[in-house]
């Protein structure tokens, strides 16, 4: 049975304004500070106009969890989010290499990894994105295991390379 809390954050890169309200909301919620690099969602801007909100996609096979040598990562059975046990995490970064999109990143102030925890089913980033009517991020229900989620896990460069073409046409190829 899928939990009611089992959600997924849909991301529409073409709509992202780059306002980074999601970063602000995420770090305020988790750190009680505005801290761009400690945010679990981060907006990359490798080319102006091609803003890419980058956050965990909850791959169906969770390669990060499997790769963790200290068993610090686990899957929340209700939400499907990857949870980090701060005590167990050594900050080794092996999960970063295991992630197809290199999405996990080290906390810039503590020796631990940062991965989106879906705010226990009510993600703050989506709330602020919706408040602003940007609609870049929205929540959908996950009814079961969707085998294609892993395909969304891509590096900022990979996403940007395609996005610039969509935005700027053939001119986009010169920009990255």
């Amino acid at each position, binding site marked *: 049975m899928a939990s009611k809390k089992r959600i997924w954050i849909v991301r529409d890169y073409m*709509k992202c*304004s*780059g*306002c*980074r*309200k999601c970063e*602000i909301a995420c*770090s*305020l919620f988790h*750190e*009680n*500070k*505005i*801290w*761009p*690099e*400690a945010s679990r969602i*981060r*907006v*990359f*801007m*490798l*080319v*102006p*106009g091609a803003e890419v909100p*980058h956050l965990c996609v909850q791959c169906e096979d969770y390669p990060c969890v499997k790769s963790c040598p200290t068993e610090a990562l686990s899957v929340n059975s209700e939400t499907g989010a990857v949870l980090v046990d701060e005590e167990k995490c050594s*900050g*080794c*970064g092996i999960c*970063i290499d295991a992630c197809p999109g*290199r*999405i*996990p*990143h*080290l906390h*810039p*102030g503590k020796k631990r990894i940062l991965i989106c925890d879906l705010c226990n089913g009510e993600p703050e980033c989506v709330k602020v994105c919706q*408040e*602003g*009517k*940007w609609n870049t991020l929205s929540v959908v229900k996950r009814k079961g295991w969707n085998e294609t989620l892993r395909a969304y896990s891509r*590096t*900022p460069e990979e996403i940007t390379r395609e996005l610039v073409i969509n*935005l*700027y*046409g*053939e*001119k986009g190829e010169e*920009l*990255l």
Partner: protein
Amino acid sequence: MHGYAGKLLEINLSTGKVKNISLKDDILRSYIGGRGLAAKILWDKLGKEWETIDPFEAENILLVFTGPLTGFFPGGRVCISGKSPQSNGMIGSTVGGEFGIDLKCAGYNGLIITGKAQKPCYLNIIDKEVAIKDASHIWGKTGKETLKILTKETRKELHEKFPRYGELKEPSALYIGPAGENKTRVAAVMAKWTHGAGYGGYGGVMGSKNLKAIVAKGLGPLPEVENIEKVKELIKKVCKKCYKEELWRRWGTGAGGYSVGAKSSSEPIRNWQEEWHDEKSFAVDKFEQRLWIKQYWADYGCPTACLKLAMPKTGEFKGAITDNPDYELQAYLGSNLGIFTPEGNVYVSAMIDDLGLCGIQAGNVLGFAAELYQRGFLTKKDLDGIDLTWGNAKAFTELAKKIAKREGIGNILAEGSYRAAIKLGKMKNVNLLPYVVHEKGVAIGAHGIRSGKDYTSNISYACSVQAGDHTSVAALPADRRGEMATIIEDSGVYCFFNTFSVDEDLIWDFFEAVTGWRITREEWYKESGLRILQIQRAMLLLGGPDYKWNPEKDDENPPRFYDPLPSGPYAGKTVNKEAFEESKHEYYQVVGWDKNGVPKPETLRKLGLKHVEKKLREVKILA
């Protein structure tokens, strides 16, 4: 000192030495940050010999300051200043983007850049580490190329420096294009592709220091604040108000391209020969219908997203990318050049960005040159074969390239329209000043005063310490409508476009929640804000070395503003000289200046500025 990152970074490019500077609480409380703090520091460092300092020599100082509210108040900016090569005073010139956030997260409130590097360099600030790096490979490159190379290089460096961190976000950069490198007076300090700190001409100051760019990457949080719960609540409040302004968000100031021209008759057309047009091609949605537009493009924390990106998809200007021209650029790189097609407007704007020119300053001098061509004062030969007819977008970009490179006639026009008029006038033996629309060497923003229907008034520019700057105008009463209100925004360093729909009290609440200081209205308009205004005024009056302004003669509107408007619903309207004199003297009185426009000794003493009084006496500005 809540809201502050703790220190300023002073970099001497001549010696390569770097040091940290801490400031006392009372200095910060009085001068806040950004423009206010810049005025204080600049006066302390250069005030004694202000009039002798050439803005393009190593003695000048470039300041890049954030403020306590940068990153907290929605829509952060960064304030650039120094001695201005346009006004010879000091202008606080702000630019949007993420640079200020990165700088604070790296642990610095601001940068004081002195001296001059021997060869092209850029500053690289990665967290607390500062390096002066070789920039020979990016010198001469356009804005887009520069940013592309810097982003790639610094991303690589981050990977090497922090191998276990995973992917870190790209650093932010401020940079100059060829126009800055070649020390034109019309060059901007650029951010992203299309944002520029244009007023003041600090792109040329960076160029004079051989400084191509400043890159910053902060890994830390924004500084501690006094009351984080209150800050959260206030951010929400401001955003909620801004989100309600749906049309403002959708169109930004770009909605003005038709309405300001057609309705308020205050838009520069063909170098201000007219201020009215009825070209519906500039009506609000025409750009969106004809061009590819990224409708919402925001800087860090901004709820409004007034700038957008634009690109023609077909035709001869296909592939030119710039921000969808906002009102100022629709005016200065559109109607002011007789260009009334969105495609042509975008094409010229994109070139201006790439060259690192200021759209307003460059648009003003391009329009000035075209009027001289129209009147036969400049010939095709003078322009090296360019047929500078109104509306000829390609011709204007060719001339813009010459200006940025200081080639041929471009070398004279690179001085800005005022200085160019004097030089060309001497060469041609004719008075060209009637065709210059400037205030104390600064091109006037695209909001004319003749119709009386815009937000500007007869003293807006003439009495402003930032001269032609349309974002910081002198006004009566001298409170929230006027320049001291802009000083608080440029000193807290956030975008005043996000304050339009909020109450004034919320601004002071915001300062309190971040810094812990309850600044009162009284305190700001009668003391702190007024003090900053006096210092800027003193620097403007000291001027030099090439031009000094005598307020009796130079606190004046450009001659064109006394010609009656020739067309439109307000045809015949003009600035009334007597009414202007009356407003001017009333303003002088309110801000504590004597009848000649000089800060009175008692005004200066009351504000603790005896040292300013002493200097003004030394050079006989004060008797």
